[in-house]
């Protein structure tokens, strides 16, 4: 699905990621950890074609990112749901409209299943906020909405950046259940998180690999996780 081969990345200064390789096979569940500033979000953006490796190669669904034109990138992104750490909403659209945006831009037929949208928003605890605007939500609520938007297309790959960073433990488990359920449906999941408890709980439910970014490279985390 997503392969980084000897990929390095820098924002202009030194390498944030150096000669790093990552293979996300279909149906796998990965956690990505590492200290703050180690490059977790950067790695997710490489997987989402927001950034391109400064050296090395990134292949998304078998295509070299450098060879892809803009329409191909757009089409590939429809098969990848991403929940950014900073959420990224359109502020004048309601939460429900923001969450449904991926369907809207891919030209899918409307009306059919508003019930399902409501169900999903209910699952992430936003039933009461569907008509509100993104700036009116708390940090945790925005994160949940971002995760809902990431999975609304039922994409092949879900990338979640700190999806549980600002929510209580009970809600974190609900969000994890959502990701686990998607993984059981055969979706590929990559979650960047600091939350070791979350990883432990997840490992009891699915076979998840835990990767750690250390000095720009990926390491398999120890057995304690």
């Amino acid at each position, binding site marked *: 699905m997503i392969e980084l081969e000897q990929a390095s990345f820098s924002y202009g200064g030194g390498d944030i990621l150096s000669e790093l390789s990552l293979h996300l096979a279909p149906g796998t569940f990965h956690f990505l950890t590492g200290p703050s500033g180690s490059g977790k979000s950067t790695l997710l953006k490489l997987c*989402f074609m927001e950034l391109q490796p400064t050296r090395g190669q990134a292949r998304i669904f078998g295509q070299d990112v450098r060879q892809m034109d803009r329409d191909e990138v757009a*089409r590939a992104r429809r098969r990848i749901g991403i929940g950014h750490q900073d959420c*990224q909403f*359109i502020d004048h659209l309601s939460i429900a409209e923001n969450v449904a945006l991926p369907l809207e*831009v891919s030209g899918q037929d409307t009306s059919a299943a508003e019930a399902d949208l409501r*169900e999903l928003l209910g*699952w992430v605890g936003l039933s009461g906020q569907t008509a509100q605007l993104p700036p009116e939500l708390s940090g945790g609520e925005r994160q949940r909405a971002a995760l809902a938007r990431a999975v609304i297309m039922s994409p092949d790959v879900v990338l979640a950046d700190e999806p549980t960073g600002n929510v209580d433990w009970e809600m974190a488990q609900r969000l994890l259940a959502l990701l686990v359920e998607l993984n059981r449906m055969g979706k590929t999941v990559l979650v960047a998180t600091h939350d070791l408890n979350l990883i432990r709980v997840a490992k009891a439910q699915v076979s998840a690999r835990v990767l750690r970014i250390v000095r720009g490279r990926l390491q398999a985390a120890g057995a304690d996780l």
Partner: protein
Amino acid sequence: MKLRETLATLGTFGLSRDGAERVVPSTGATAWLTTLTAAAMAFLAVFALALSLAAGRMADRWSDELARSSTVRISAPAEQMEARVRAVMEVLTTTPGIASARLIDETEQRALLEPWFGPDLPVDALPLPRLVEVIETGARYDSEGLRLRLAAEAPGAVLDDHTRWRRPLVQAAERLRALGLASVLLIGGAVAGMVTLAATAALAANARVIAVLRLVGARDVYIARGFVRRFTRRAGLGAALGTAVGMAAVAALPGGEAATGAFLTGLAFEGAEWLWPIAIPPFAALVAFAATRAAAIRMLRGIT
């Protein structure tokens, strides 16, 4: 489990219909500027068209009259008339710039005189001059030279070309028609420029929205569509308003006897000409569509 069912069907639905437009926030007061400018431009275009069409009509009518503007009047004693006419025709057919010369026969002459003298005029009994109608080629003839030749070879033949003075007027009218059409095209260009500026500003103001749309997999054409539809509608609506007001104003102009060719009273649309101003709003919408689309595609290509 309910969640699984929900997730299984999620990929199949969306929200609103004209979403592309909803996702791009409208820019309030400046939105009206596009409509207003388009209305003003359309209003001007109506007058430019009316001017062009009226000038064209006038040019056609005058040049038609001009083509038959000259006659040669031949007076001679009855027994010499035959020879004199032959001499005049000889001169006319050998004069460069004259397409044809036609002797007006007696029945026709009687018809010409009838309004003045009634049907019973005994043409044969009167010493009437004979008339020769002279049709010019586009090249025109030298009237002074012709006059001299006629005086020398056919005394008593007088060239009457008093309507020739209108020739510069015809040229002016033709030029006015071209200027009117050029104005319409310039107005179209101004609309294109105005819409391009407005659309570019709108795109720049929405950089964040565009970035989010990119993240959820929107293609350039989708993002452009929101802007294109909005500006096309605004320009079309404004142009429709301006055209309606302009047409009403032209219709309300005091009309005059068309045949007098008076320019001021001739500034109007006649018959099928009314279809021309009706084409202005679709034309404006088309221009706005093309301008916005080009601006959007160009700008979106610049942002990654």
